[in-house]
């Protein structure tokens, strides 16, 4: 009976038991009381060979409709951007992906340097001073940012303004509810923050104001006004951004954000049914010692040679235990590695080009779709690569028609927002060809 990945021959086992001074394998567990020993065999399926596994799982994967075979206009935080081949080939090098957190800097310079480059790239995109080396996802990064604001100024009210995905709001609520923090939302008009409502709700008790740019509906928020209203109250201004939008859209560092977070999956990472994702976390430098997560710094070795290392570790759980700024340990380092390679590939010009392409494609799609009187743009606010259409057709029928034409379902906003029950969220990335966009409009137009 061959169990894969175990190298022991019978002879090995015999000799090793002898050295261990134990008469049988069972005796290795003689310290476990008999009363709690598991008798019998764990009821798992029988082992399979690699060939059988591969066949079974390949067939199983075909039960899923994927974005290679179908055309995807799905967004809402997770995006079907193109991933260049270099990303998988380089991030897939096993010197990277089979290593642990780089505690031993001397033999981890490869990854430490990549994370340092990653931090630099996040700072470049966001125009912030400092970045950590990744968080679980955009939602938890936002929640940790809210906690950090509370720990910084001691105020107990977190204000969510504009539109976040329902997922994100739930995560923020889960993270903050046991710290005595209350989470409030601000009214939304025409798809964006109602500035009057924000003005009313932002007070001296507000720890921070959180805004997503572009927001969940794809609309651009008036971040300049929101910043003013936030800082007038002395609250911290926390902005969640789509990092690829920043090739085109004004970066939060230019409008005085204190903390910037976001979902970085779109930077060279697969959608993977929603995980792993890539949370990023950047801030003004005055907050660096309060930041969660790992941070890499540049230093020298004892010969004066440039080197990189984990730094400011006194913030972290393995040193500070219950006094740490966060409990995060494992992060999404490999996703950050992919993001770094992807951003190097795009480079200074490419990141603007990809953002412009997304925006052009999205605006083209919006124009084309709304030529049909059955569809109109729900909101008048400017948008980047996503927009909401309202229809007098059944969203269910629409999604069926799309699938029939090998286009994946659109996000039905009625599922989350009762007042948007005839609304669909459409995302158009640089991957969508003019022909695909025209087909989408055509299928939508044909629904009766």
């Amino acid at each position, binding site marked *: 009976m061959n169990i894969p990945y175990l190298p022991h021959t019978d002879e090995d086992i015999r000799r090793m038991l002898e050295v261990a001074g134990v008469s049988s394998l069972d005796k290795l567990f003689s310290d476990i009381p008999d009363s709690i020993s598991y008798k019998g065999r764990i009821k798992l399926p029988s082992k399979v060979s690699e060939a059988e596994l591969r066949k079974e799982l390949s067939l199983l994967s075909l039960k899923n409709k994927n974005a290679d075979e179908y055309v995807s206009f799905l967004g809402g935080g997770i995006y079907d951007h193109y991933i260049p081949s270099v990303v998988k080939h380089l991030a897939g090098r096993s010197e990277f992906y089979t290593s642990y957190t780089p505690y031993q800097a001397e033999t981890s310079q490869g990854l430490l340097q990549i994370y340092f*480059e990653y931090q630099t790239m996040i700072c470049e995109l966001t125009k912030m001073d400092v970045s950590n080396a990744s968080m679980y996802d955009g939602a938890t990064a936002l929640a940790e940012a809210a906690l950090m604001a509370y720990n910084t100024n001691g105020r107990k009210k977190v204000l969510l303004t504009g539109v976040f995905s329902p997922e994100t709001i739930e995560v923020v609520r889960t993270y903050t509810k046991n710290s005595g923090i209350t989470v409030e939302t601000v009214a939304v008009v025409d798809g964006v923050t109602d500035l009057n409502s924000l003005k009313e709700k932002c007070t001296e008790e507000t720890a921070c104001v959180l805004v997503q740019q572009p927001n969940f509906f794809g609309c651009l928020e008036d971040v300049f006004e929101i910043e003013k209203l936030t800082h007038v109250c002395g609250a911290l201004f926390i902005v969640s951004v789509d990092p690829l939008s920043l090739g085109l859209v004004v970066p939060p560092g230019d409008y005085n954000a204190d903390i910037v977070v976001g979902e970085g999956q779109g930077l060279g990472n697969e959608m993977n049914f929603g995980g792993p994702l890539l949370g990023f976390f950047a801030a003004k430098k005055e907050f660096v010692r309060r930041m969660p997560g790992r941070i890499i710094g540049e230093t020298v070795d004892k010969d004066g040679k440039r080197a990189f290392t984990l730094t400011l570790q006194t913030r972290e759980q393995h040193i500070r235990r219950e006094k740490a700024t966060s409990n995060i340990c494992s992060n999404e380092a490999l996703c950050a590695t992919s993001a770094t390679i992807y951003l190097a590939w795009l480079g200074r010009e490419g990141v603007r080009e990809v953002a412009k392409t997304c925006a052009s494609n999205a605006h083209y799609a919006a124009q084309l779709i709304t030529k049909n009187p059955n569809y109109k743009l729900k909101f008048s606010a400017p948008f980047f690569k996503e927009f909401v259409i309202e229809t007098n057709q059944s969203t269910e029928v629409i999604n069926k028609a799309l699938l029939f034409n090998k286009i994946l379902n659109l996000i039905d906003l009625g599922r989350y927002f009762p007042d948007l029950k005839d609304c669909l969220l459409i995302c158009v990335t*640089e991957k969508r060809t003019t022909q695909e966009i025209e087909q989408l409009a055509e299928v939508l137009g044909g629904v009766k």
Partner: protein
Amino acid sequence: MELIFEKTKEGRKAYTLPEPAKCEPGVPDKYLRRNLTNLPEVSELQIVRHYTNLSKRNIGVDGNFYPLGSCTMKYNPKVNEDIAALPGFAKLHPLQKEEDVQGALKVMYELEDMLKEVSGMDAVTLQPAAGAHGEFTGLLIARAYHNSKGRTPTKVVVPDTSHGTNPSSAHIAGYHVVTVKSKDGNMDIEDLKAHLNEDTAVFMITNPNTLGLFEKNIEEIAKLVHDAGALMYMDGANFNAIMGVTRPGDFGVDIMHFNLHKTFATPHGGGGPGSGPVGVKGHLAEFLPVPVVRKKGETYSLDSNLPKSIGKVKAFYGNFSIMLRAYCYLRMIGCEGIRKVSEMAVLNANYMKELLKKHYNLPYDKICKHEFVLSINTFKESGVRALDIAKRLLDYGYHPPTIYFPLIVDEAFMLEPTETEDKETLDLFVETLIRIKQEIQDSPDTVKNAPLNTPVKRLDEVTAARNPVLKYEKKR
């Protein structure tokens, strides 16, 4: 090495992009970025060279023995990487319709089932992204449970050998942390008794503990904890030692997390992504995060209708592609292999322990589980510390063991070989440690100055922390 930014040449490009639609981008002037970023301007080959050369300055399990205690650096099967890369798994959007992702939901449902069976727990959530995230989730579940009983205990009790994430997670979940002592390598039952009372919400245990020893009084501990009205949480970081031998659900654990990136052979990725599913006993299932995967007939669905749920701890459903790798691993090992994995992990550890204890100080000389801890405190006259031996091992091509943890062992040196290593590798490693001991006697400075053969030597960590340089800034 140069940074990718330092290889920039104005006007050089690697990217290619499809032609945009013939339409203006439509973002109003007010919202436009004024200046370009300073992202690199390099060719595709430059990128490939740069990151390939960086990979040569890094070691992983594939190239090097990696006996990093508590981290279970076992081999990560290649087939799992291939399967995770199939478009039918990798290119799924989380908001597709349930009927269009039945294969993915089946993987999740069956993985939950397998984890339940191996652990003896009754329900599992796959949502947490890492072990610490699982702890946080588990503690929120405990809080919801106590609240549902009209109780509001404020304390979480942890042993002094616990992982740093345990007290940290407890703090973030809003609890006050109390630490209890160890005695002869196990829990000090008297100290535990002194700290358990009606104000205790949860006792967090790691079993086997971080000394690699099984808490043999676990049943008594469980009884004490439950009699105090508290719940018992188990940190599953060391689960690799006991699979098929005993089940946490059968020795009184109410909540536990699994580390798929340890026990279930998924790669560590240089620090992540991991996956930290949480298992609970039946009385806690109603508090699990939403959504929960359900099966009716042959159809799978996602159920968010759990009124008592703690909510969501992460966007969507967790680190799916990591779950998928763990699923593949369990299918390959099967019922025939699960106990064998733990047996071989424990055999490897005991074999190494017996060979090494003749040369190094083993403070707790008893049968260990998947790992054991040496104390490098016998070389004080030459000034050699655990750190020095760790660094010297780098010269010999090994990733060193975990050092200075657990905190209760002086100059701790914690070794976990894992079951995927062969006897020859262990023998060579032991020989190397014996050789280093000889070096300490003959030329202690060689060890104290190590590493000598690595891409860089010991770093100036103090300056790094005092004057942090955390990003590249273009020299003007």
